[in-house]
């Protein structure tokens, strides 16, 4: 499983990465002591799929593929896709604390004082 993950980290082609992570997920699911790892690899493939969808919606102008959950939220916020950011938060059960930090930092770096006021 770890080998598949290492392979995934070296590859660049999205579909190859996804299938390598899926392979890792399969290995982990077969081991009852690896439920956490299985869950995480599953989340990972879900995120990769969602990121491809986001890229499509941004007309390929923004890169999402391969970012972490937090980075995905930040990138959404920085590109005016606040609704999508909320969706990531909900789908991946991101704790409020981390989400609000991300939002605060994103708004500050965009100097969006209006939104900061209503924060």
């Amino acid at each position: 499983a770890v080998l598949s993950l290492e392979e995934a980290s070296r590859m660049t082609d999205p579909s190859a990465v996804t299938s390598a992570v899926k392979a890792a997920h399969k290995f982990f699911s077969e081991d009852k002591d690896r439920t956490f790892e299985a869950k995480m690899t599953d989340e990972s493939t879900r995120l990769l799929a969602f990121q491809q969808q986001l890229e499509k919606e941004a007309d390929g102008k923004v890169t999402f593929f391969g970012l972490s959950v937090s980075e995905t939220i930040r990138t959404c916020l920085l590109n005016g896709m606040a609704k999508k950011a909320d969706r990531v938060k909900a789908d991946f059960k991101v704790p409020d604390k981390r989400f609000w930090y991300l939002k605060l930092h994103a708004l500050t770096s965009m100097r969006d004082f209006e939104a900061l006021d209503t924060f």
Partner: protein
Amino acid sequence: SLGRERDQSLNLDSLKEIGKKALIDALNSVNGAKTLVLDPTLAGPLGLVTEVSLLKHHGVDKMFWLEPGPLSSTTTNIVYLCRPLIKYVKILADQIKRHARESLKHRYTLFLVPRTSTLVSRILEEEGVLGDVTISSYNLQFIPIAEDVVSLEQDNAFKEIWVDGDETVIYNSALALDTLQKLYGPYPRIIGKGDYASRLATLLSRPLPEQPIPGEFNKPVVTAPFDSLIILDRQVDMITPLLTQLTYEGLIDELIGISNSQVELPVSLLTPPSAPNPANPASLPSTSAAAVTPVNNEKMKKHHLTAATDPLFAEFRDLNFSSVGKNLNRVAHRLDEDYKSRHQAKTPAQLRDFVGKLGGLQSEHQALRLHTGISEILVPITRTDIFNKSLEIQQNLLASYEVSKQTSAIEDLIAQGAEMQIVVRLLCLASITAGGIKAKSLESIKRDLLQAYGYNYLPLLLSLSASPLSILLPNPLPVSTAPSVAASKYPFTTLRKSLRLLIDDNPDALDEVENDISFVYSGYAPISVRLIQCIAQKNGVISNPAEKVLTDEADGKGSSKKLYAHPILGWKGFEDVLAAMPGKTFDIMQKGPGGDSSPPSISSLLRSSEQTSTTVVFFLGGCTYTEIAALRWVNRQHKGRKFLIATTGIVSGGSLIESIAGFGKKGPGSKDTSI
């Protein structure tokens, strides 16, 4: 004084000379002009033994990094110099095959560092190019990186042993330690702790293959023969590297990064001001934090941090960073006075005298600028919320104070966007000090971490929990856990007491903080160095020997009253402490040249009270700058014994975590090399 102490320590220049000579011999063994293809991770270590001009003088026409892709060479000879890693051999094989397809004729020589390996020949054979390559070795072993420190500069040693299960570096360490014996005399006794340390000791106590040492170098005159070799492996004390180093050099490594003694700094810090003007004392750098803030896009340049040519660095490197500012100020004032002294120069002779000193003043002036600049990079970082929260969590964990609250404090750091390595270090520290993290909070924090930094860190988390490393564990352990993991539980709270690790911060103890090895972590003593004290300075474990020296100094008797170090008596007195720690404990009497294996003779015990002897301390898996600083402190408490610190490399918690994650230092970017 410093000069006298230096005289009594071993002259390490021979090691550098041997490294250099062996490289020359290797290059000269290939006749004519050659193209050198260099393993990027060797550039730093080689830079410590040689300079580019030396390579040019020995026929190196052009240099390239060893990296995937085609290689074009104008010379017939192509010389590869690399560590014996599979990925490198594959690149080499690929380049040879490309040349063959283009029917280019080249002669290939491969120098493996530090020695050849059958694995390499096998891969070359599989690739069908074995017949095209002459395989040899460049035996690069210990490189002196300070007047009392030698290093193999093998940055990945820890990961190779404890994660990959590759023990090559243990064997290479044995060979390098054996070379030291051949140069400076035998180790009468090998004492140590740790399973891998024990394996190394066993290798050393058996005959090892003869290693050629280049003939023409000055055999060192040994004034302080070895009294013993102490070997600790990194697993014996994983806590120390997980903490934030608080000495000057340690903090530079933590916050800027030191690689092969080199640190990357803004160019403006490294170039002397165009016109140093002694007439204007205001040109001295201010020690306030306002002056030099590195601009983000300023050009960076590598600087070799060394006490050999930088007396201020020698003075500051081991100080707790909190006192560096004060010392910078003192030096600035002294320099100012020295510049002003020219006003007192009345006669031509006095003036000449001042001019003679000017060069020294100016280089000191430049050193002052440099260290002021470095401090000004460090200070703002030490004032950030994340830095201070991380320190606070470390202190709480070391004191077992509100342990469960620390996990949520670590979660806060993740939310605030702290660096991944900071978070992972704290987690491992929590696990080791408390005997594991509650399964439920461990799982949620691991999930948090993967979401924040990327799911690609899952293999890192798995490595940290896997045996033999086992530094990130749930508590209680799941029933399915291997017994070896359960057995490796670290008795931290017991050690905290028996090894006097934590110096209370009550006012009476404050002085002691300054006068105990715990100064390197502002009140915490590294376990590794306490263990060395168990062997070489027994009273220093139980109480603070510096107090006696201090009262003597107050009496005006000064350091001449320093006591002689006691002879090496093994672990005596601390057997129980050692037995409670995981890993083998050993104490081996070495056979003398005459096959004599009797315990240390009376004469050797007597000698140790009259003559200075050297205790070699070898860290298998790396040591931190704070451990070096702490050992130097121990060194200063006695006369009659010097430490020679030997290590596979210099590590920090950050570098360990990054090497396990596989995102270690990236190779240099450009294709053309400069060492």
